């Protein structure tokens, strides 16, 4: 274990912030969803890094559950995107403004 955990944590934090910026900047619903996946993965990397640093297997088990929940979330989210954008040309999130006052 040569590389200290702080390096992994920095990479994970950078990935998380890039994902957050993408979520705020992009307008395509699918790309926004991919940015959410990016943020989830950064958190997973943080979990595994702390599991190694603190020598606790519980962090890795939690990543397993995160993966399951992420899979379920992707399935439901993509089904929603398909049913909303089936009749439109693009998938721009700005077009969905039914709840606007």
């Amino acid at each position, binding site marked *: 274990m040569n*590389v200290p955990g702080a390096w992994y944590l920095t990479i994970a934090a950078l990935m998380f912030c890039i994902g957050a910026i993408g979520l705020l900047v992009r307008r395509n619903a699918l*790309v926004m969803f991919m*940015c959410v996946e990016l943020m989830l993965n950064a958190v997973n990397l943080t979990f595994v890094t702390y*599991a190694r640093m603190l*020598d*606790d297997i519980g962090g890795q088990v939690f990543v397993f559950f995160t993966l399951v929940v992420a899979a379920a979330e992707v399935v439901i989210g993509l089904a929603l995107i398909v049913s909303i954008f089936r009749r439109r040309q693009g998938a721009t999130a700005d077009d969905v403004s039914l709840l606007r006052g």
Partner: protein
Amino acid sequence: MEWAVFLVFAVAALAGSGGVVMARKPVHAALSLVLTLFCVAVFFVLQGAHFLAAVQVIVYAGAIVILFLFVIMLLGIDQEDVLDEPLPAQRPLAIAVGVALFAGLLLVAKILQPTGATASRGSATQGDVANVERVARSLFTDFLWPFEITSALLVIAVVGAVVLARRGGSGRLLDEEEHVGAGSDAGPEAALEHPGARGVPEESA
């Protein structure tokens, strides 16, 4: 050696996540996402989490990104994204929020102190037990109940996806909203798609 692998894949991971954000086409964003997820799997291997690395490649890079590509294909949105902003202040503000988030994360990591208590779920590295066996032992003893719940969660997700994506199912609400909004869109096919919507009074007459 480990440093070399780490540095190469760290650069690749950051380049991939930058590609997700900046790619003009959704397909390119999805492929950049594959690159990033694979690099994270390499990081898992470097840190001894072999089981999670395998699951990461199979579930994330294998299943989830393929699902994304299927949806891109299904919706036919492979044209280039419009990248000009209706709100001029949004992009600098978003970058400022991202930088502030990074600073906050570094601050938290700096002031966070591990208590030094021994692991309650078992060690991750000590001894000569393989990683898969460690994860399995914790998963099927301490986390048995949550593990069973996840199966219910997956079944609910599958049923929900089928109900949502089915034509004329409970997606009908969304579709009819669309017809009211678009007007010209509602042709004869729409009437065929929802026979229950207007067919009942005609049958009784």
